[in-house]
Each structure stands twice: as structure tokens, then as C-alpha cells.
């Protein structure tokens, strides 16, 4: 058992995958000589060389598309898009080629590519570098979207994603890189289909993923002190959504609050709320609450940014409202 950071867990996962399979290689901006914008690929350039740790020019559409093409050509590429904010430049390749090719070609071409992106706000990077589009991408049929929130998932999900025959978008929230966790020495691949219950509870269900899991667990701790026993569910995968796990939980607790760093309108939290209403309407004793980022371009000033993104206090307030049967 080793205590390592989330960042190291991802790095180890990449190293293990590249050692196990010749077809696996990584490309992205400044992942090689520079060691990765967030230091995830530090040391891999020296270990695997420029052919398999390929620095790319600042051409997101080209190198993401090239990753897709290489996957078609028989490789198992990992493409690092420095942050989800820059993935907007490669959206056409992801949606119109990666996600559509299998269905559109009548099943002839599948695209086994993994695209890793840092996501989320909270580090005063201002509007253009603080987006949370994980939920957006979960709108698109044909790709899988996973959001590892723990060290074990950060390590275990990458191997499973690389083995998947279809494109997998792998979101790492920037605020998690320094978080520490236990990783067993024989840790192996983990599933990317199921949500996980991170804290059992009977009064209400808190549903979240990725970077807002710590915030939600903190809120659950505070609620416990106030006599409210909250269950915390970590979605782990945003597409396909494991709605069975959170719907069963709501059947037991009859109340739900969803915590999602995306903007509320048209967000993944809206989709989760709709699925609960569709599948467990008659189990509800309160409107389904949602704690999302305020609908504003994320501001630079720290106090303003903190006011914009979901906080533990917001979650506690929403949970108490739910206990009162209000939204």
C-alpha cells in the first residue's frame, strides 16, 4: 500500500499501460521535454523517448484528429489536451469523427482512443481556463466520459479506458492533482461502468463526480453534525450514466441534491434530475435540489471565483432545504 497523489497515480497508469502494450503512446502539448503542463507526464519523455511521448504543435484539431486516425490505424493512443478549455478547438474531430464513425460506417470502424483533459475551476485561472465541460461531452452518443475522483480510480480507470473499443474522454479535475490517497501495490484496472457510494446515509442522497466529490463529502460531514445523515454517490462515469445506483439510493432516502461544477442550464445535473423524476417520481418527498456553478464566466478574483463555484456551504443549504421539502 502506497500513499501517492492523484497526479502520480495518473502518471503510473500511463507508464504501466505503455510498458504493457507497444501500441500505447501519448501525444499532447508540452508533455515531453517540458514534463506536462500539470506535471502528469514528468519523466516519461526520458523513459520512453520522443517517438512514444510526442510533443505536438499547438494544433488541437490536428493532433486530436491524428490520435483518432492513429487509433483507426491500429494504435492505442492517449491524447492529452492540456485543458478542456482548449478541447473546443477539437470539438469537430471528437463529435463528427470519433463519436460518429462507428455508427455512421455501419460498424466498420471503431476508434479506441483515450483523450485526457484537465477540467474545472478553483485555481484563479479566470474565465477561459476554468470551464467544466465534462457534462457537455456526456451529451454525445458514441463516446464514453469518465471522471475519476480518487487516487484508485485515477490509476485504475486509464487501463480499462485504453482497453475499451470506443473513444473515452478522461477528465482530471485540476484541484485533485495534489490530493493524496492509498494505492494498493497490486492495484489493477477498475470498471468504468458503475457509480460508487462513498458514504452511506438514510436521510438524503448527494450525487456528484470528479472535483466536487471532496466538497460534497465535507458537506456530508457538516450535515451529520446537524443530525442529517447524507448518502454520497460518486458517479465515476458520466456517459453512460449508471442511473440504477443513484435511483436506488433515492428510493431509500426520498430526497436528492446533485452537485455539479457545470453551469446549471442544460447541464449533466439537469439530466440526472430528469432521470430521477422519470424513474422514482413517487419516491420523492422533496424537489430534487441542484448545486451548480453560477451562470457566469468564472472570475479571476479568489473571493469572486469561490462565490461562483459550488461550495460545501451551498451543499449544506440545499440539503437542509430538501429536508424541509423545498428546493
Amino acid at each position, binding site marked *: 500500500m502506497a500513499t501517492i497523489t492523484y497526479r502520480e497515480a495518473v502518471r503510473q497508469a500511463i507508464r504501466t499501460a505503455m510498458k504493457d502494450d507497444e501500441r500505447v503512446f501519448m501525444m499532447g502539448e508540452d508533455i515531453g521535454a517540458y514534463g506536462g503542463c500539470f506535471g502528469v507526464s514528468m519523466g516519461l519523455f526520458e523513459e520512453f523517448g520522443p517517438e512514444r511521448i510526442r510533443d505536438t504543435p499547438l494544433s488541437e*484539431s*490536428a493532433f486530436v484528429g491524428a490520435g483518432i486516425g492513429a487509433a483507426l*490505424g491500429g494504435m492505442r493512443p492517449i491524447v492529452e489536451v492540456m485543458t478542456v478549455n482548449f478541447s473546443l478547438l477539437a470539438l469537430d474531430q471528437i463529435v463528427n469523427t470519433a463519436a460518429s464513425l462507428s455508427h455512421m460506417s455501419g460498424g466498420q*470502424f471503431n476508434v479506441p482512443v483515450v483523450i485526457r483533459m484537465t477540467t474545472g475551476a478553483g485555481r484563479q485561472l479566470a474565465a477561459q481556463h476554468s470551464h467544466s465541460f465534462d457534462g457537455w461531452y456526456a451529451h454525445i452518443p458514441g463516446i464514453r466520459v469518465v471522471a475519476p475522483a480518487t487516487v484508485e480510480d485515477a490509476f485504475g480507470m486509464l487501463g480499462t479506458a485504453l482497453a475499451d473499443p470506443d473513444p473515452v474522454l478522461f477528465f482530471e479535475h485540476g484541484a485533485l492533482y495534489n490530493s493524496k490517497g492509498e494505492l494498493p501495490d497490486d492495484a489493477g484496472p477498475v470498471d468504468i461502468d458503475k457509480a460508487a457510494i462513498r458514504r452511506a446515509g438514510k436521510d438524503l442522497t448527494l450525487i456528484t463526480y470528479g472535483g466536487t466529490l471532496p466538497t460534497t463529502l465535507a458537506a456530508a460531514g457538516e450535515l451529520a453534525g446537524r443530525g442529517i445523515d447524507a448518502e454520497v454517490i460518486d458517479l465515476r462515469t458520466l456517459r453512460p450514466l449508471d442511473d440504477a445506483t443513484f435511483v436506488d439510493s433515492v428510493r431509500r432516502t426520498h430526497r436528492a441534491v446533485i452537485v455539479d461544477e457545470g453551469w446549471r442550464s442544460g447541464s449533466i445535473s439537469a439530466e440526472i434530475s430528469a432521470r430521477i423524476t422519470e424513474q422514482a417520481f413517487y419516491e420523492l418527498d422533496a424537489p430534487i435540489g441542484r448545486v451548480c456553478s453560477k451562470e457566469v464566466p468564472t472570475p479571476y478574483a479568489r473571493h469572486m471565483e469561490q462565490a461562483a463555484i459550488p461550495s460545501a456551504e451551498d451543499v449544506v443549504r440545499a440539503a437542509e432545504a430538501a429536508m424541509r421539502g423545498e428546493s
Partner: protein
Amino acid sequence: MSDSVELLRSMLRVRRFEERCVELYSQTKIRGFLHVYIGEEAVATGVMSVLEPDDAVVATYREHGHGLLKGMTARKVMAEMYGKVTGCSRGRGGSMHLFDKENGFYGGNAIVGGGFPTAIGLALADKMLDRDRVTVCFFGEGAMAEGEWHESMNLAQLWNLPVLFVCENNLYAMGTALSRSESETNLAIKASAYEMPAWTVDGMDVLAVADAARRAVDAIRAGGGPHFLEARTYRFRAHSMFDPELYRDKEEVLKWRERDPIDLLRNALDLDDQTWQQMEDEIAAEVEDAVTFAEESPDEDVADLMLFVYSPDSSAAGRI
């Protein structure tokens, strides 16, 4: 049949197939958008003639000719345009999205410039796996205004990737003349800025195209890195079926028609009428057979709508 006669037959086959598609479209048998290759046949025919069977091709939405020339049967292409399940993409792609894995045809793409990254990715895989294969990426001159072109040309040359860029310069990007969309209209000079060998060739002369393609492909296979080929050609019909062609005048069309690639080669070979007529009859039969096959083919079962959103063996199959 000598190579040249084979080239003539290939061009004629594409020409007659496309003419029949125009007719079927006007009878509402084919729907959606339809972009035909009439007038430009020499480019794809010339390039394809120098490729090996497992070389890869990435094309655009004006792709029926490319698909046929890369080895797809007329039946599979026509059935796809009828939207039938026997089509090469089970009727899901239509005219702009033909695919054929066996023949290494990585599809049409309806996004202008959308195919560049796929092509250089395929070439990257070939390079990393030491595979002796060339990827050919066809595109129109309009695509050179897309960011993907600049990004892909740079990346291909930077990483010395085995890819041949073939620009089918038919002077009009839909309704926009070349001079109104490109600052530098000499496209080969434009491409050479990436330190990539770039040549211009008369796109109406199939032998010239074949010769240029041969030199480029041989160089690429020898590790010479990516090459750029600008083929100057002209589409005799509108951009698509619903285009009143207000942007060009009739005289220009007639002038280019005088250099119809099929007539040029036929006259050069001084082919006897009997061989020509036999070619016509064989092609007419093949086209009609394809139409009948498409007419009688079944539709895809609606129950299969969700099939292949994810790979059938994936744990995500059938889930949202």
C-alpha cells in the same frame, strides 16, 4: 487491356455512374445532398492507379468516384445512396459518408477539412508500426482555408509522415471562386511554405496525374515524407443538385468541357468504336445492375437503430 485503356474505362465507369445518380436524384430515389465528380474523373483515377491495395484513402463528400476506384462495388455505393442496409454503411452514411474497411477507404467527410487529421493519424500509425503504406488525402481547394489544413500540413512535415495530399482544385469552393478565398492562388507555392514537396499537374490529363502521383508515392514509400499534389481540374456540373451556378458563366464551362478528360484520352488512344461500345455496354449493365440491386435491397430494421453507437461487445452498448 493496356494501362491507358484501363484508365479510360475507369473514368468512363465513374462518369456513367454519376450521370445515373443525377437522374435518380431528380426522380427522388436518392435524397439528401449529392455532389458528383463529372469532369474531375482524371484526378482520382490517376492517383488511385498507382496505389497498392492496402494503401489508405481519406476523401470528401464528392467521393463516389474515389470509392469506386478504391475497389468498392457499384452495388454497395448505389445501395448506400438509396439508404438501404446493403449499402456500404448500412444506409446510414449516404452519398457523403461511404466507408469500406476491406479496401482501406476511410470515408467521405462532410466537414470541409475534417479528413486532414484522420489522414495524418493513419500515416502516424503506419510510421510507428513500420508499415510500408501510403495514406492519400483528397480535398478541394476550399479546404485550404480551414485551420485543419495548416495544422495538418505542418504536423505531417514535422513528423515526416507518409501521406500524400491531393488538392482537387476545381476553381470554385461551392460558389466562391478561388481568387475570392485564397490570398495566394498558386496552391503548390502555398503548400511549399511547409517545406513539403509540392507540384501542380493538369488535372484533366489522367496520364500526367498518374505520372506525378507515381513519383510522389514512390518518394513517400522511400521515406521521403509527405508530398502535396495540386491537380487543376473543373466540375462540369453544379456544386450539388440545388445550385443555379450563378457564380460562373456558361462560356467558361463550355471551354473546360472541350478538355473533357475522357475525350482527351480516348482521342489520344485513337480507340476503335467497337472496343469503346463494349466498354459502354459493360458499364451500363454494371450501373443498371447496381440500381436494380439498390431498388430491391431491404431497408435497415428500425430495431437496429442503436446498433454500433458503441461497439457491440462494449459494456456501454445500448446504454445512455
